């Protein structure tokens, strides 16, 4: 963004700021426009360097983690039918993986933000209303392998991120490892 004195947007400013007919109200109006312009410019700069490829940005890596957590929850639920003696541990895994998915979805939505009208942009992965497709009950070993892999991928992603996102994925990774190591022991 090139700052030129007196030209804060592309069009010409219709009102000479030094006009004698300048009222107190119009001063506020101009100040308001200027503020909106500044926000829009900073928003663009924050996104993708100001070019028009915002729609081509790679998807949030947390989306895949949230999907994986929901799949794990569905698998653990399906496993209850085959292993009713393990229902306590399996139901707990379903609850924890669902909590992980919800926390990840909340963080994804927070980063996306809200539109001007106050609604959130809709994406495929943020719609949780669709019931999960029925899954075949996994064996205990399959579920262990699946959760071990979930913990591994969450840890790998946590290493490459920072701040709250890294901490959240670290917690999720530790939880998955604990599910395998303690609950499915």
């Amino acid at each position, binding site marked *: 963004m090139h700052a030129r004195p007196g030209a804060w947007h592309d069009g010409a400013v219709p009102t000479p700021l030094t006009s004698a007919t300048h009222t107190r109200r119009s001063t506020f109006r101009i100040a308001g426009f200027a503020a909106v312009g500044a926000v829009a410019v900073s928003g663009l700069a924050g996104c993708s360097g100001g070019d028009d490829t915002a729609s081509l940005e790679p998807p949030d890596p947390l989306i895949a983690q949230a999907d994986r957590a929901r799949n794990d929850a569905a698998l653990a639920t399906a496993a209850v039918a085959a292993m009713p003696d393990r229902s306590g541990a399996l139901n*707990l895994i379903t*609850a*924890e993986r669902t*909590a*992980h998915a919800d*926390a990840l979805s909340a963080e994804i939505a927070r980063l996306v933000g809200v539109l001007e009208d106050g609604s959130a942009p809709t994406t495929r992965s943020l719609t949780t209303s669709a019931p999960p497709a029925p899954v075949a009950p996994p064996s205990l070993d399959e579920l262990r392998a699946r959760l071990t892999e979930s*913990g591994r991928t969450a*840890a790998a992603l*946590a*290493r*490459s991120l*920072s*701040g*709250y996102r*890294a*901490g*959240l994925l*670290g*917690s*999720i*990774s*530790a*939880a998955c*490892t*604990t*599910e395998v*190591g*303690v*609950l499915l022991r």
Partner: protein
Amino acid sequence: MSPGPEQQALLDALAAEYAAVFAYGVVAAFSNPDRDRMVAADAAAHRSRRDATIDALTAVSIDIPVPEAGYNLPFPVGDPIAAANLAVTIETDTAVAWRSVIERAQSEHARGTGLDALTECALRLANWRTILGTAPPTVPFPGQP
């Protein structure tokens, strides 16, 4: 050298590990003798974390604080149940410190250390909660205060 955010997080984790090493001495004194090996292994893991953290901070020329002369236990400990509850408290506190290291770390290496340490705390926490019969034995977000 004055500590940056990452070093400060490691210093906080070191303080938690100092407290953990002290408190596991109390756990060892009062826990069920059948669990001696488990207590010894858990205490050794915390000593190892403490020493590794000291090494990491020494490597970047940070002055290493000494442990407190004494620690106030959060509740009186005089029997195996209280000892197990103290172990739960230790693992919960150290998990919080290590998750904070993951969040405040500025290098992938420190984040990896935080991840490993947090996972170990979560496993020990779940084992102690299982012993106590706490329902549920695990928490969905280890280290989340």
